[in-house]
């Protein structure tokens, strides 16, 4: 599967830092509107829709992927016309020096300044995010404020490219890859039941959008399409073993547990069973080093929802450039589609 066969390039290059997912939402809205009914945007900004099924099953199944990405927010402009900012979502301050960004709705190009090594080589401590400034070239405070209003979001200025036929590099695959998978499901064959579709907001600041999306759609079952950490750089012997984390090219990850939820055992078995039947490569991940996903919010909605996360292994989450394998993407779509086609109420019995 090649990059141009997916929506991943357009989706990942769109700006959508938490709470300002507008570009992503518009892109998805335009893409799915002819394939769904009941398309609406709720008060938080979640994009909700129903994909009509064949009517053979009355299960209410929700599939969710979050539209937001980690990034930054403008917190002020200093007297020199340089922009102060804070992180939205978890970002390692060590990636900030000399970073290229896009500021605000105009996507004004900017650079995070860094004191020359000649004058700073003795400074070993990691600089805190609030000590950095973004230079957009503004000559004074007024010129900068014209381009950077308080609260404006700032994204990584990263282009999405294919490194090989199937390996791609870009920003925000977390979770635009999940969004792209969900779009594939929406555009494909109908399921036995009506599919409740949720492109959620504000996952990165605490799984906010998914909570109300679940309450609005009121599903029996929820599948969360996500990305999860892969980290395959060579390890030294004295380092903690992180090889229990996932690997690119080894298929979608069927989650047992992450930081915010334990997967429904029946759903987990169903996914494993279908993967086995169809010979779809898949992997499991250690709950160690996991983050939380929308599953944590959806599972605890209302009286409880049978929930599982199906993830794509992805390197360098929450950084300007992530790397993933489109073969995993293709297999994830295949696995989720096939499992949903077979899903029956008996899978949910405890």
């Amino acid at each position, binding site marked *: 599967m090649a990059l141009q066969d997916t929506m991943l390039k357009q989706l990942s290059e769109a700006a959508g830092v938490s709470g300002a997912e507008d570009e992503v939402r518009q892109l998805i809205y335009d893409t799915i509107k002819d394939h769904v009914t009941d398309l609406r945007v709720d008060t938080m900004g979640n994009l909700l829709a129903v994909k009509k099924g064949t009517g053979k099953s009355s299960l209410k199944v929700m599939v969710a992927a979050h539209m937001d990405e980690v990034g930054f927010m403008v917190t002020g402009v200093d007297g020199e016309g*340089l922009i102060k900012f804070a992180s939205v979502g*978890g*970002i*390692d*301050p*060590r*990636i900030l*020096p*000399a*970073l290229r960004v896009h500021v605000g709705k105009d996507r*004004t*190009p*900017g*650079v*995070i*300044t*860094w*004191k*020359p*090594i*000649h*004058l700073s*080589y003795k400074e*070993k*401590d*990691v600089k805190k995010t609030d000590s950095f*400034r973004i*230079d*957009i*070239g*503004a*000559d004074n405070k007024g*010129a900068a404020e014209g*381009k950077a209003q308080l609260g404006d979001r700032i994204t990584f*200025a990263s282009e999405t*490219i294919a*490194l*090989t036929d199937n*390996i*791609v*590099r870009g920003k925000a695959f977390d979770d635009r890859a999940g969004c792209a998978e969900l779009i594939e499901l929406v555009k494909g064959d109908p399921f036995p039941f009506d599919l409740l579709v949720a492109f959620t907001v504000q996952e990165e600041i605490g799984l906010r959008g998914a909570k109300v999306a679940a309450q609005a759609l009121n599903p029996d079952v929820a599948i969360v399409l996500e990305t999860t*950490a892969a*980290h*395959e*750089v*060579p390890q030294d012997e004295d*380092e*903690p073993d*992180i090889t229990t984390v996932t690997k690119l090219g080894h298929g979608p990850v069927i989650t047992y547990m992450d930081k915010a939820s334990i997967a429904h055992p029946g759903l987990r078995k169903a996914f494993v069973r279908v993967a086995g039947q169809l010979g779809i490569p898949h992997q499991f991940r250690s709950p*160690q*080093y*996991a*983050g939380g996903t929308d599953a944590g919010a959806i599972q605890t909605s209302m009286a409880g929802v049978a929930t599982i996360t199906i993830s794509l292994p992805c*390197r*360098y*989450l929450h*950084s*300007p*450039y992530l*790397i993933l394998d489109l073969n995993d993407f293709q297999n994830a779509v295949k696995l989720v589609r096939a499992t949903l086609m077979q899903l029956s109420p008996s899978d949910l019995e405890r």
Partner: protein
Amino acid sequence: MDLKEHLKTLTELTGPQGHEEAVRHYLREQWAAYVDEFEVDGFGSLISIKRGTGPEPRKKIMLCAHMDEIGMLVADIRNGYLRLSDIWGIDERILLGKLVLIHTRGGTLKGLVASVPPHISNAKGGTDAYPDWEELWVDLGLPAEEVAAKVRIGDIVTMDAPAIELMGDKVAGKAMDDRACVAAVTACLDYLKSRKHEWDVYAVASAQEETGLFGAAAAAYKVQPHLAIALDVAFAQQPGVNGDEYPKHGGAPVIGIGPNLHDGLNKGLQDTAKQLEMSMFTETYTGATGTDAWSIQVSREGIPTALLGVPVRNMHTPIETVLIKDIDRVGRLMAEFIVGLTDEFMDKIAWKPADADKGDKKNGADK
């Protein structure tokens, strides 16, 4: 000439220390319209000669800006990942999550310096320290066998950093140090195109400044100029670089004073700036300037040398930022100075005993 486009092209070329050929070839094409002859010396510096109109033997002025950029090498290859080593001058604290280019014998590969996701960084020593070179790995997104077949230890590595335009006619990118000054030399040649000058002009794009000022030393020895102007970037004011001793964007030309630099030549440049009603920013150097001026000054029997600069922010990063107008002003100043050079200039700046011709002394003291 479109100075901004010229600069952007220049900075995007690959030319770390000792591997300047792409820059040299480009400059040879660009400068062909301005100069009469080219030479390439044993170090790889490009020496271009624009003949003056004075009677032979004509005097020579050398303009020297270095075309090399700071670069890296592949130091280790393991399971498809690369470790890097610095040739000289790279700040490893900025490398996490940045893009690099690996220049292999079969072509250029795109690399990413692996960052550590917050989800697992706690297990990897946290985020309290910048990584050392040994902790940095480059991910090419290629199978390990392919990496092993294509990449060799010692392949050169540069930052993958296309030039971007910022507001206010500023450009950010890699290798502004010192291609912004190479562009200033181009601007000077462009100004001289329609002007008459007596002296021969030797425009030198030097190699290997960022290893030890080597290219300029060899070029100066070969050219034997009567005067030299070295050009290099100056620290511009920015966060962490504050104070009156640093110029701001818009402050060019920056001129250096101190023992490495010749007061008489400086006065000539300052007088020219006055004629042009151009302000200059003066930087003081008590000893070494860390520029090509340091090696040119002591070539042969000594060469009166000046240092002109362009203010740059974020020096030695892939977002070195310059103001286009600063580059143009340095080019214009040099061109005007060269146009004004007469055969007597060397005489004027030479040391004379206290009881020498009173008239000369009076002129010399005239501020």
